C-alpha cells in the first residue's frame, strides 16, 4: 500500500541545514493500522505529511497504491489527495460552516451534486455517531464530537488511506479511547489502511498492528506492536514505554538483594492466563519470586511479561525449558 524509499527532508535556513527526515524507509500493508511514535521534533509530523505530499521530500520516493506520488503533476496530485483522508490534532474544521457543510466540503471539491453530497454526508455522520448534529456549528460541539466531524469529513470521499496527525492529542483520556475505538471500528468495517502518528504508547497499544519508533529524523525500531512492546531494543522505545507505565527495567533495582537466577518470561495470547508459576513451583520444586510484572492487552490480544527470580537446590534446566516451551512462553535469562 505504502512504501517509502530512503526519504530525506532537509530545511535550509541561514546556511544551516536541518534534517527533518534523515533517510526513512517504511512499508505499510493494505488494511493495516500503522503507528508512528516519537517525541516532538523526531520528524513524525513531517513523515506523515510525506504520505499525501503536504511536504515534499528532498530526496527519495513515496509509493502509495502503486504510484510514486512525488512524480505526479499538480492536478494529478490534487486528484490523489482526494482519495486520502486526513484527520488533524486541532480538527481544522471550518468554524463558519455547519457540521453538514464541513462534511460536504471534500465532496463539493470533487464536483459531486448537492444531493449526492448530502446523502454521503448523512451516511458518514451516522457512521461516526453524529446523526442529528448536522445543522450545528463546530463550536457547539465537544472536542471529541469535533474530531468525529473531522473523521467523517476524511471518510466522505471514500478514501483507501486515512492519515491521523495526532488525532487524539488534544482530547481527554476518555474521549481519546472513544475516538480510538471509532478508528478501529472504521478500519475493520471498511478495510481502510490507517497511518497515525502519536507520542503516546497507549494509542499504539490500543489500535495499532505495526509500529515505527522515530528519533532525530530516523526510524530507530519497527515491527509488530507485540514484539516491540515485549522486547523493546532502542532506548527511546524503552523510555516511551516506561512513560506509559510499561516499565521493562524496574527489576534492576531489586535484583541486588535477591539470590538465584533471573528470568524474563514473555506471554502472548492464551498463555497469558495459564498457571505457569504454580507449575514451576509444584512440578520442579523451585521457589519463585516476582520482581516485576505486567499483564495487559495489545488491541485484543492479551500479553504479559514477568521478571522472576528462581531458587532451588536442583535446578534442572532441561525440565524448565520443556515446561516453558510446552506452554509457549518465551524467556530470556537476565542473570545466570
Amino acid at each position, binding site marked *: 500500500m505504502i512504501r517509502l524509499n530512503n526519504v530525506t527532508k532537509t530545511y535550509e535556513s541561514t546556511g544551516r541545514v536541518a534534517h527533518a527526515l534523515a533517510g526513512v524507509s517504511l512499508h505499510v500493508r493494505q488494511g493495516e493500522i500503522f503507528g508512528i511514535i516519537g517525541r516532538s521534533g523526531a520528524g513524525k509530523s513531517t513523515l506523515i505529511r510525506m504520505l*499525501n505530499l*503536504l511536504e515534499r521530500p528532498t530526496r527519495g520516493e513515496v509509493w502509495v497504491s502503486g504510484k510514486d506520488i512525488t512524480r505526479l503533476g499538480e492536478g494529478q496530485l*490534487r*486528484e*490523489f*489527495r*482526494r482519495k*486520502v483522508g*486526513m484527520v*488533524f490534532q*486541532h*480538527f*481544522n*474544521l*471550518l*468554524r*463558519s*460552516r455547519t457540521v453538514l457543510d464541513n462534511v460536504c*466540503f*471534500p465532496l*463539493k*471539491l*470533487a464536483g459531486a451534486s448537492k444531493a449526492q453530497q448530502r446523502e454521503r454526508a448523512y451516511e458518514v455522520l451516522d457512521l461516526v455517531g453524529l446523526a442529528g448534529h448536522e445543522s450545528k*456549528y463546530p463550536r457547539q460541539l465537544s472536542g471529541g464530537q469535533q474530531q468525529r466531524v473531522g473523521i467523517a*469529513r476524511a471518510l466522505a*470521499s471514500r478514501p483507501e488511506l486515512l*492519515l491521523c496527525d495526532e488525532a487524539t492529542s488534544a482530547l481527554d483520556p476518555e474521549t481519546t479511547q472513544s475516538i480510538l475505538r471509532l478508528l478501529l471500528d472504521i478500519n475493520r468495517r471498511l478495510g481502510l489502511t490507517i497511518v497515525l502518528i502519536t507520542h503516546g504508547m497507549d494509542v499504539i497499544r490500543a489500535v495499532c498492528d505495526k509500529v515505527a519508533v522515530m528519533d532525530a529524523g530516523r526510524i530507530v525500531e519497527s515491527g509488530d506492536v507485540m514484539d516491540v512492546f515485549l522486547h523493546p531494543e532502542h532506548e527511546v522505545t524503552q523510555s516511551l514505554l516506561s512513560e506509559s507505565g510499561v516499565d521493562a527495567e524496574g527489576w534492576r533495582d531489586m535484583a541486588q538483594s535477591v539470590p538465584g537466577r533471573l528470568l524474563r518470561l514473555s506471554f502472548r495470547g492464551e498463555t497469558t492466563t495459564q498457571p505457569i508459576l504454580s507449575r514451576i513451583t509444584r512440578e520442579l520444586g523451585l521457589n519463585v519470586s516476582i520482581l516485576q510484572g505486567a499483564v495487559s492487552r495489545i488491541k485484543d490480544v492479551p500479553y504479559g511479561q514477568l521478571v522472576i527470580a528462581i531458587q532451588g537446590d536442583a535446578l534442572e534446566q532441561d525440565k524448565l525449558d520443556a515446561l516453558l516451551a510446552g506452554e509457549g512462553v518465551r524467556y530470556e535469562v537476565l542473570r545466570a
Partner: protein
Amino acid sequence: MNFSNIDWLLIGEATFDTLLMTGFSLLFTVLIGLPLGIILFLSGKGQMLHNPAVYQVLSFVVNVLRSVPFLILLIVMIPMTRVLAGTSLGVQGAIPPLVASAAPFFARLVENVLRELDPGVSEACRAMGANSRQTVLMALLPEATTGIVAAVIVTAIALVGYSAMSGVIGGGGLGDLALRFGYQRYQTDVMIVTVAILVVMVQILQVFGDRWVAKLNRK
C-alpha cells in the same frame, strides 16, 4: 450661540453629499482593496502562492500610498482625478483620491485578517485536494467574514473623516461646508452642526457595525 441663521437645506445637501462620497468610495475601496489584500496574503511568506517579487512590489505601493498624507494625495492626484472622474471638484472629484487612500489601508487590514486565520484550515483544504482558488473562496473568505466586516467598518469610518478633508480642494460635503462657512466666514454655529452630524454618522456606523459583527460571531 444662535443657530437661527443656519441654512438647513444646505446642511441637508452637504450631509447627503458626504454620504454619497463615503458610500461610493467605500464600494470602490472594497472592490479594489479586497482582491489586493487577498493577493498580498497569498503571495506572502509561507503562503500558497508565495512570490517575493509580487509581494514586495505590492507591499511597497501600498506603503507609499499609505504614507502620503491625504491632503497631499488630494492635490497630487488632481490630473488623474480629472481623467477618472471627469472633474476634480465636488462629490465625483473626491472619490478617486478617497479610494486611492483607503484601498491600500483596507487591503492591509484584509491581509492581516487572513493571516490571523488558523493555518490548519488551509492545510486541511490542501489535504482534501483543493486548489488555491477553492481554498480562498470556499474556506478562507467564509472563515474571515467577521474580520473582513470589521475591517469594512473601520475603513468606512476613516472615509467619513477623509471625505471631510476633501473640502479643502472643493470636494463638497460637510467638510466643505465646515471649511467655507465655519472657518472662512467665522460661522461657528455651522461648524458645530457639521461636526455634530459627522459624530453621529460615525457613531451609527460603529454601533451598526458592532451589531453586525456580533451577529456573525454568534454562528
